[in-house]
């Protein structure tokens, strides 16, 4: 039982990394991207290919996985960032599917539908971080989450974070303030993709084999749900969102009901939670992070009485 709970925490950590990346793109810059699955896949396959075919050490593959994903983010970002709102969503969703399609068909590199098996485990100072040794793996994953959190938190509090938010609030005004909006949007994409790539790398050494099947756009949608459910623009909330969604999806197994109720109920429950949550609290559980006041002391909570309208703006084509 404990092992199963630890596993949920491990998955939560991996998804939290992806959700933090999504948060930069969606929560901060306000771009509705649905491509995390693609970046996740690139990260997974980078680690799998480099460590299986070229015998690289896991730790060397992690930055490469992140960078390759970031590169993909830039490649996707540069042309598509002219698009707004749902157009961007559908274009990025398309890119995610293209990535999966390419992986599924580039047999010589990725093994096609057969995938890549026998990925060596990660190890540090001669100690193998065995995915079956849950505590060690959990530690590794959450160290990544912590590092990611610290990085993103600092980024968000810096002038760069502020510029990203300005772009979300009003792109035209931002560029008239001397902010290079295209550059920041591409960087946001790259950072978001980097986080997903690293998450993919961790996933690869956890499952020890990769196949193209799981990297569907549903993963991207899940990650988006995590961000929205937790609270956009709030990294702690997003981590909480990642955990909650994992928790919900494994809830029937946790309470030992998975064998009793029809398997579909889990998914139906998840759907219900999404609908109810959006009606009841569209700004997410925690909502947007409160703004820093001048003295650095947290200011009184923002008024969120009619929550939905409070600024979780996604750049929309037509409003």
């Amino acid at each position, binding site marked *: 039982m404990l092992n199963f709970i630890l596993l949920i925490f491990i998955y939560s950590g991996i998804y939290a990394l992806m959700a933090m990346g999504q948060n930069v793109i*969606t929560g901060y810059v306000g771009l509705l991207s649905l491509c995390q699955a693609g970046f996740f896949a690139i990260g997974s396959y980078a680690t799998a290919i480099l460590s299986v075919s070229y015998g690289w050490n896991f730790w060397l593959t992690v930055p490469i996985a992140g960078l390759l994903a970031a590169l993909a983010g830039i490649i996707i970002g540069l042309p598509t960032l002219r698009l707004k709102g749902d157009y961007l*969503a559908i274009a990025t969703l398309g890119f995610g599917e293209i990535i999966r399609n390419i992986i599924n068909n580039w047999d010589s590199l990725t093994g096609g539908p057969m995938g890549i098996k026998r990925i060596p485990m990660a190890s540090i100072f001669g100690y193998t971080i065995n995915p079956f040794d849950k505590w060690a793996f959990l530690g590794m994953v959450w160290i990544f989450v912590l590092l990611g959190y610290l990085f993103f938190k600092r980024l968000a509090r810096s002038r760069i974070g502020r510029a990203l938010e300005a772009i979300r609030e009003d792109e035209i005004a931002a560029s008239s303030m001397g902010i290079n909006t295209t550059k920041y949007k591409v960087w946001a994409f790259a950072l978001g993709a980097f986080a997903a790539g690293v998450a993919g790398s961790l996933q690869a050494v956890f499952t020890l084999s990769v196949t193209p099947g799981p990297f569907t756009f549903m993963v991207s949608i899940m990650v988006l749900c995590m961000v929205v459910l937790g609270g956009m623009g709030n990294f702690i909330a997003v981590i909480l969102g990642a955990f909650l969604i994992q928790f919900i999806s494994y809830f029937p197994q946790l309470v030992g009901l998975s064998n009793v109720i029809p398997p579909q109920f889990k998914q*139906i429950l998840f759907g219900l939670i999404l609908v109810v949550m959006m009606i009841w609290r569209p700004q997410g559980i925690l909502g947007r992070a409160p703004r820093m006041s001048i003295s650095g002391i947290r200011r009184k909570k923002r008024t969120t009485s009619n929550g939905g309208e409070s600024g979780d703006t996604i750049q929309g084509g037509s409003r």
Partner: protein
Amino acid sequence: MGSWAEFFQHLMNGLTLGGIYALIALGYTMVYGILKFINFAHGDILMMGSYIGLFVYNAIRGELLGFWTIIAFFLSMLVGMMFSAILGMAIEKIAYKPLRKATRLAPLLSAIGVSFILSNLAAWMWGTKSKKLEYPFDNSPIHLGDIAVTPHQIMILVVVVVMMVALKLFIDRSRLGKAMRATSLDQDTAKLMGIKVDRIIAITFAIGSALAATAGFLIALEIKVYPSMGTMTGLKAFVAAVVGGIGNISGAMVGGILLGLIETFGVALLGIPYALRDTIAFIILIIILLVKPEGLLGKAEKEKV
């Protein structure tokens, strides 16, 4: 690419595929035109309508093929359409209407939730096995030289054309259609002009869902009925809607047909591996969006500074 016969064969295949995409895309585009959000559950409404149609058809269909069978088929289709229309309206009322003033993301996620509920509900109630919908006629191909055309393909084309023309006339000519267009341009103004916006939105959902059910029932003859039948087709249809210019009725038709043709000919003409078919569709989508972000027939919206 061998011969002309092969070319026309591909053309026929592409047109029927595209017609189906267009029919589904219409629903997406109508909803988007009015509410500005992607109704992710559209594909699942299609699936629900097809199931209902299938049950009705199996119950009333006679043993022999003949005129009655064809009538029964269209009757069942009508029942499926009505069911979908009601389902669409109900979903709108429960899951989307409370979110009209919320952020753009809220209804999108709510729609994803509805999609989860519907597809899994169907799997639970009716099982995961594909259910066969019997042809109401003999579907042996008619050979025109080397080209084989099935009655099913002809029926798809006829129904699609009829539906599209009817819809186009309805939107352009009827009072209700005009009210719809007014609502999609500016809800607040429409309200001031005395249009019952809530009612118009409900009707839009009803029509879009009914069209989806039609498309579902038509393709079910070939692809069978199963819980996830609407997912990928729905996604492609959405791509078609965007390509044509989302929110634009004619755009959805053009986009759908175009996507069907591109998918078919991309593989046939260019020798692209078939497994990359979806990739072609998505690459086309991205190229079109980059060249003309508002879609082929969409109107550019310039933000006023």
